[in-house]
């Protein structure tokens, strides 16, 4: 998990906007490193050219 650089206020605002959750200061502190990793993952995803591929559902894996 990445070490966080976000302020508690910023994290609290993000959590309210994205999840509609109102968390205590200690819960926000716990969440911070997880959010850093999430944002890093989202940036990774954004960097990939996905072309026209459709989402995988995987409920029908067949022999290739």
């Amino acid at each position: 998990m990445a070490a966080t650089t976000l302020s508690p206020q910023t994290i609290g605002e993000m959590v309210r906007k994205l999840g509609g959750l109102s968390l205590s200061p200690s819960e926000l502190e716990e969440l911070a490193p997880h959010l850093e990793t999430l944002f890093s993952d989202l940036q990774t995803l954004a960097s990939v050219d996905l072309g026209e591929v459709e989402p995988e559902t995987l409920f029908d894996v067949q022999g290739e």
Partner: protein
Amino acid sequence: MEASELCYTSLRGLAILIQRQEVSPVEATNAVLDRVDKFDRQLNSFITLLRDEALTQAHAAEQEIQAGRYRGPLHGIPIAVKDLFYTKGIRTTAGSKILSDFKPAYDATVITKLHDAGAILIGKLTMHEFARGATNASSLIGACNNPWDTLRVPGGSSGGSAAAVAAGLCFGSLGSDTGGSIRIPAALCGIVGLKPTYGRVSRNGVFPLSWSLDHVGPMARTVMDAALMLQVIAGHDRHDPTTRTAVVPDYSVALTKDIEGARLGIPQEFYFEHLDPEVRNSVWAAIQTLERAGAQLEEVSLPLSKYAAAAGRIISLTESAEIHEQFLRTRSSDYSSEVRASLLTGQLIPGKHYLKAQRLRSLIRQEMAAALRRVDALVTPTVPIPAPRIGQTTVDISQETVDITWALSRLTRPANLAGFPAISVPCGFTEGGLPIGLQLTGRPFAEATILQLAYAHEQESIWHQRRPMF
């Protein structure tokens, strides 16, 4: 035979002794129960020990076998399972305080299949809370310890399963694998762990972590033992619509086939980067062993695998958040802080990012499928590092400091995203005596192929014969 020798006999070896009535299921069950009493305080692998139930089952098995009604290789064999498999009337905690009193009303399909095969369930094994982690450091009963060094983690989330099998506390186990949770602890504890193809084994009655990534599979001390367990649990289940009707082959027959001419793909990107040097050396030695046994090596390109960690985390977090929504609202304080924070993070992921991750997953699967059209299996390390110390949060690899969970799961996640079968087998030890795992990944429903290759490697190596200090 001494009790400790008996407990370290392979499942297959014990099956032969039981079939010949040279060892009774009661004798074998008492031997492992005594061993749990003696050693599990140091390992902390059992959440629930089913002493009376196990002995009742063992006596019944003994009577059946004496009456000439032998059911097959699992009849009378003491096993234990990860504590997320539903067991009727027996508490199933998923390693969490939240389910500490949960007694399911029915058995998971795989538990029913093991019962029908005559296996003796001696207990339920610890796991990372709700399978949401790769160390097994966070669980209802506290950290589980690695039998090779009790100051280190066994890996997770099926860490109790790996520790118990490695220490001779049972003859085989079942685990679940969403990002590597069978293969990681198998590698760190020096045993065999198989994640089958998505749809090969039922997930009915298995507490979910992430529906589209969860797999159920065997953990055992030898490849043959894993094959015998897979034989029993594989197949279509009308209670799990994701299971396939594909024919289940005879895995133990497939094992002994020659691997001459088998083509092994060595990925040119990602899988051999950021490795502990001792892991690298052992894995290359294992690849050379397979080459000497007749396999041909071929370079393959899998550049998208480096995105598997990001895609896998986003999919898993989002699906977990939905699975846990009710508990997060009503029992939030009963989660460990680490798992609660992880689940809350999943609640914050917008749908478009989940779909983006699933689109990336399609590309990763297509790329892996293309490589596996050219070769029979991919061969890689399972985990880039040996077992970390309990409480360790980062590790230095290739002059870089990285997060432990990231390091543990980075090489196993691609097979979960693809849904393809993958097995981890012991391939060496560090100078400090910690196990190292080799991973073989195969085509969909080609479990027989990777078992065959794993068996060929095992026949030429000695690593599976080593025992921890217990």
